[in-house]
C-alpha cells in the first residue's frame, strides 16, 4: 500500500470499531474455526451465531441449496442456547479484541426477555436482536414483518436490555423504513440489515419443495442490489447507525454500502467461499481510501 495510514475506524452507536468490517451472524460460529485460519482480531467485529433461549438442533432435510449467484439455507438456528453459549463459548468470545456482537433470536416475547436478562451482565459490546430469521416457524408470527409487532418486541427488550441494542431487520418486512423508524423510536441504538430473503426451490422430479419448510433464506451476491437499496432507504429514514448486510463479497461492495449510508458492513456468505475474505475487504477499502485521498469513512458515508 502507498502513502500514509488511513483511518478505517468507525463509531457504531458509541462502540469504537477498528474498521467497519464485521462477520455476520450464522456465518462464523463464535469465531473459533476462523481463528485457526486468520487473525480474527483484525476484524471490526464478529456477530455470534444466533442464540435462542434453549439449544436447538436446527432443521432436518436439505439445509443448503445453491442458486445462480447465491445460496438458500434452512439451517434453522442450530445453536447451543443462551446458557450453552455462556458456559462453553463466552470465555473465548468475550476475550476477543474486536467488537463482540451477540445475536439473539426468539420464538416468543418471553424467550427474548429471558435471553436478554441472562445476557445482561456479560461482557460484550452489542446485542443484535434477530427479529427476522425466516427458517423458524413460530406459530405464524414473524416479528420482523409487521411494524407494530416489531415495535412491541423492541420496546419490551429495550426495557430490560443493558447492552447497546441493534435490531437485525428482515427484508421481508412489509415496510422496512417504517419498521426501522419504529425500532429507533423504541430506543434501538442501531440497525443491522438485511437478513436473508424468503425464497423457494422445487425438486421437479420428486415434485415437492427442496426444503422441508418449503421456504428458505436466500443470501449471497444475488441479494446485494436489493439489500443495498434497503440500506439506502433506511439510512436516510433514521438517525441511528446502520450495519449493511447482503451479499457483500468484495471491498467494492463494502464501499457501496457505506456510500449508501451504512456505518459498518457485515460479511456472510462470502466467508464460506474464502474464510478470510473479510481481510481482503478491509485491505481493499484501505487502499481505495488512500487512492481517493479519503481520510475517514465519514467523508463518504451516506454521500448518495
Amino acid at each position, binding site marked *: 500500500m502507498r502513502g500514509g495510514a488511513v483511518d478505517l475506524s468507525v463509531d457504531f452507536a458509541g462502540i469504537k470499531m477498528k474498521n467497519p468490517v464485521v462477520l455476520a451472524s*450464522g456465518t462464523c460460529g463464535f469465531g473459533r474455526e476462523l481463528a485457526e485460519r486468520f487473525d480474527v482480531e483484525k476484524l471490526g467485529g464478529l456477530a455470534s451465531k444466533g442464540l435462542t433461549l434453549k439449544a436447538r438442533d436446527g432443521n432436518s432435510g436439505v439445509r443448503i441449496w445453491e442458486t445462480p449467484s*447465491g445460496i438458500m439455507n434452512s439451517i434453522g438456528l442450530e445453536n447451543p442456547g443462551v446458557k450453552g453459549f455462556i458456559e462453553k463459548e463466552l470465555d473465548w468470545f468475550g476475550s476477543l479484541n474486536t467488537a463482540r456482537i451477540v445475536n439473539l433470536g426468539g420464538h416468543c416475547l418471553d424467550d427474548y426477555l429471558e435471553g436478554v436478562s441472562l445476557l445482561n451482565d456479560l461482557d460484550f459490546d452489542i446485542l443484535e436482536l434477530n427479529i427476522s430469521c425466516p427458517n423458524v416457524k413460530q406459530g405464524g408470527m414473524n416479528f420482523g414483518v409487521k411494524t407494530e409487532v416489531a415495535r412491541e418486541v423492541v420496546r419490551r427488550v429495550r426495557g430490560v436490555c443493558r447492552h447497546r441494542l441493534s435490531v437485525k431487520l428482515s427484508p421481508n418486512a412489509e415496510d422496512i423504513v417504517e419498521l426501522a423508524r419504529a425500532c429507533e423510536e423504541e430506543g434501538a441504538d442501531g440497525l443491522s440489515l438485511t437478513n436473508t430473503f424468503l425464497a423457494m426451490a422445487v425438486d421437479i422430479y420428486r415434485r415437492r419443495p427442496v426444503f422441508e419448510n418449503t421456504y428458505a433464506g436466500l443470501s449471497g451476491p444475488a441479494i446485494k442490489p436489493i439489500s443495498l437499496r434497503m440500506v439506502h432507504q433506511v439510512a436516510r429514514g433514521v438517525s441511528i447507525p446502520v450495519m449493511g448486510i447482503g451479499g457483500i463479497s468484495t471491498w467494492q461492495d463494502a464501499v457501496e454500502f457505506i456510500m449508501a449510508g451504512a456505518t459498518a458492513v457485515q460479511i456472510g456468505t462470502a466467508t464460506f467461499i*474464502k474464510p478470510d475474505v473479510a481481510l481482503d475487504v478491509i485491505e481493499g477499502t484501505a487502499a481505495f481510501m488512500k487512492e481517493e485521498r479519503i481520510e475517514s469513512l465519514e467523508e463518504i458515508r451516506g454521500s448518495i
Partner: protein
Amino acid sequence: MTDTARMSRVLSNLQLSRDFFLMRVAEPNEAKMGQFYMLRSWGMYPLLSRPLSVYDADPETLTFLYKVVGQGTKLFSGLRAGDSVATGRALGNTFPVVTGRVALVGGGVGIAPLYLTAKTLKKMDASTRLDLYLGFSDEAVLCGEFEKVGDRVVTDVGGFITDRISPEDYDWVLTCGPEAMMRALYGKCEKAGTKLYVSMERRMACGFGVCLACGCDTSRGRKKVCVDGPVFPAEEVFI
C-alpha cells in the same frame, strides 16, 4: 496468500468412464485417508466450492476421483494439464487405523477415499488382510489400481455390492457410498458383530464448520459432517 487463494497446478485429468474422472494436482500436503478438499477452478460462480474426497496422496501431489453430477464437477471435467485449481487444505477426520481382517466397501464414486485408505492400512501393517468390494451402477473403473493395494478386489456392476460381502469374515468394515447401501451394510455387520465405520455425505457450503449445512444426527447429538466427520462409527449415525 491464504487457504483458498492458493492455486494448484493440474497434472492430469483423465476421463475413466462416461462420468468418472481422475484428477491429479501438484500440491504439497499431508492429506490422510478419508479426508476431503473444497475445490474450485472458477472465479465467483458457481458460488460454492465443491467437496472432493482424496483418492490418493503423496507429499507433493493429490489425486481426486470425482463423478460429474452438476455444474461444478462439469467444470472440473474440462480442466487440462497446466490449468489451475484452488485446493485449500485437507478437511475432515480420517478413517480409523485398523488391522487384522479388513474389508473396504465402496459404492459408485464412494470408492474414492478407499484407495488411499487401503494403501495406508497396508503400509501401517503389512499383515493386514485387506479386501475391497467395489459396486458400480454401469461401468467399473480403477479395478486394476485397487488390485495393487488390496489382497482381493470384488466388483459388482448393476447389482448390490452389499450382497457380495460376508461381514463375519472381517474384524472391521469401512465404507463410503450411497446412504441406502451403507445402511444395508450396517444391517449385515450388526448381525455379524463386525464393527463398521461409514463416511457420510452431505451438502456443504464452507467445509470447515461454520455454515452448519452438513448437520448429521448421531447418538451423540447433531454433528457436522465436515469437521466431526465425514467418518463416523455406523452405530452412531444409523440410529
